[in-house]
């Protein structure tokens, strides 16, 4: 029984394919319409995913489990985050993996005959890892140098280029706080996108010196910002709460500070990009719909043209069901082939562009599956009416049709 049904189906499939091949020009145009519809759906989803990946990548590059606390009342309100808050965070808040307080000032430094403002940041060695810094040449300063208050510094790439061009000479030094600081390395920010998400204190002309050295040489009491890396992204909200509680407890209520994490931006970015992608899918689905209407149109013309063919088949004892299935298969094949071409096109173009620009382009497996399913469904849906028209023809009239 099953074998018989299979043979029956294969017979109708053959008739359907024969008819498509016999009208190849028209079939190709119909397929093209479907292909464009499917390609736009797949392409749009790829673009949406790419946008999402870009934004998420920016945020994750900076660190999605990074929490930062900073004062907002510098110079006006003395009640800011101070040195002693930092050990308190580590002691009282669970889930903190690393912490990097930053002291900050600036100095005018003579560069190529003119003076320029250079940011001086006092940081602990943990800063390198927490802030995702890449040491371009030389090295970062060590825990020991920090503990000893050593007069060493690491320059931002911009500053190094301003001072020395491409490479800096060995044993070069820089005058800061009226003292000679030995230059031990050059850094750049590991993720260039950091500045896009949040203004970086280490951007532009900057020199990093050990935290302890900074404390010894400056009477600055308040930290500019404290970077806190939570152990896991899940721990971020707990860390934010804990740090907030401690600052509130240790300072007067008028204290001005802000605690932020990139976590919240991540969720927001994902939500926005999902909404945008869905919107784009809805728009491109219209072209899929147009493709489907194209199929219905062609199938209606085909049914009319093949009236006598249908009449003969019915007269010879092809059931209405056989005629119906044959025409549904024709519509489904046209839209499936269109769907396959569309997926190749819709996925291939982003892949090619990605390959050209060296970007990994995401092609959603889901969107490919959905595009296939939807294109076949479109074919069946829009093929139904013409197929039923073919199957329910009056046989005698169809035979007499010239």
């Amino acid at each position, binding site marked *: 029984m099953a074998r*018989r049904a299979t*043979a*029956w189906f294969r*017979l109708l499939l053959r008739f359907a394919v*024969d008819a498509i091949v*016999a009208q190849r020009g028209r079939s190709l145009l119909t397929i093209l319409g479907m292909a464009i519809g499917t390609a736009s759906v797949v392409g749009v989803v790829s673009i949406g995913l790419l946008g999402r990946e870009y934004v998420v990548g920016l945020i994750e590059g900076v660190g999605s489990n990074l929490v930062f606390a900073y004062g907002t009342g510098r110079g006006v309100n003395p009640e800011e985050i101070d040195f002693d808050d930092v050990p308190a965070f580590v002691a009282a808040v669970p889930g903190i993996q690393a912490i990097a307080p930053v002291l900050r000032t600036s100095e005018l430094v003579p560069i190529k005959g003119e003076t320029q403002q250079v940011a001086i940041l006092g940081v602990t060695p943990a800063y390198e890892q927490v802030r995702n810094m890449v040491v371009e040449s030389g090295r970062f300063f060590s825990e020991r140098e920090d503990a000893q208050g050593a007069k060493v510094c690491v320059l931002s790439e911009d500053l190094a280029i301003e001072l020395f061009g491409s490479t800096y000479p060995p044993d070069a030094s820089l005058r800061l706080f009226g003292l000679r600081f030995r230059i031990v390395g050059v850094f750049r920010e590991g993720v260039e996108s950091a500045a896009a998400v949040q203004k970086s204190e280490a951007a532009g002309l900057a020199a990093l010196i050990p935290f302890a050295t900074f404390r010894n040489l400056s009477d600055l009491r308040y930290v500019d910002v404290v970077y806190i890396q939570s152990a896991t992204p899940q721990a971020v909200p707990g860390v934010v709460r804990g740090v907030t509680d401690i600052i509130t407890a240790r300072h007067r209520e008028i204290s001005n500070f802000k605690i932020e994490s990139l976590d919240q931006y991540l969720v927001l970015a994902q939500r926005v990009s999902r909404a945008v992608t869905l919107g784009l899918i809805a728009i491109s689905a219209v072209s899929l719909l147009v493709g489907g209407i194209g199929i219905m149109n062609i199938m209606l013309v085909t049914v009319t043209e093949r009236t*006598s*063919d249908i*009449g*003969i*088949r*019915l*007269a*010879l*004892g*092809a*059931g*209405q*069901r*056989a005629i119906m299935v044959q025409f549904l298969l024709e519509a489904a094949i046209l839209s499936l082939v269109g769907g396959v071409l569309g997926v190749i096109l819709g996925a291939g173009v982003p892949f090619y562009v990605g390959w050209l620009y060296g970007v990994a382009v995401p092609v959603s497996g889901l969107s490919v599956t959905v595009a296939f399913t939807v294109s076949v469904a479109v074919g069946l849906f829009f093929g139904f009416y013409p197929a039923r028209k073919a199957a329910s023809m*009056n*046989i*005698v009239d169809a*035979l007499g049709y010239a």
Partner: protein
Amino acid sequence: MTGAPEPVIELSAIRKTYTKDAAIVHALRGIDLTIKAGEFTAIMGRSGSGKSTLLHIIGLLDAEYQGSYRFNGTPVEDRSPDALAQRRNRDIGFVFQSFHLLPQLTILENAALPALYAGDRSADECREVARERLREMGLLARLDHKPMELSNGQRQRAAIARALVNAPRLLLADEPTGALDSKTADEILEIMLELHRGGATLIMVTHDREVAEVAERTIHILDGQTSNGMV
């Protein structure tokens, strides 16, 4: 099959009305007709008298009529379109005046079509049977030709092969020689008569008195009614 043969076709009070642009044509006005297995019945009558209409109803091609029709003892009116299609496919072979071959298929594919739609033999077996029928019709050298490439006589023989491929008990022919020259017409008629001699129930619409002479029964149709008298 001893004793009286079974009635294959039992028509009673069959009426058929066409409505075309508010004009009503009474194509059949109450036909009563019983045809037994193995009979050769000729249907004669002027053009427009309703012969084709009657044959279409007998052949289960037209289910829109009034009256009652029992085919092989079963009322036709109760059957679904697909059930009627199956009876057309297995029990009835049609031969039309204008052949009605599918132009895009070869003669072999055309002849195999009813067997393929029947679905109880493999495609190879269907083609084998079709080949055999075409061989009997003298078309063995033409199997892979399209109908366009054949003469009218060859086309009609291919159509007969197709009608026979499922070995139906009933053969219906609507002016099968209408489009043929007289020599070819005689060949086709001889084939039809040979089939009848082989045991087939045959109903043929014809204008040829000589054919009617050969037939066991001749039914005259006049304005949609049977007239049992002469002429």
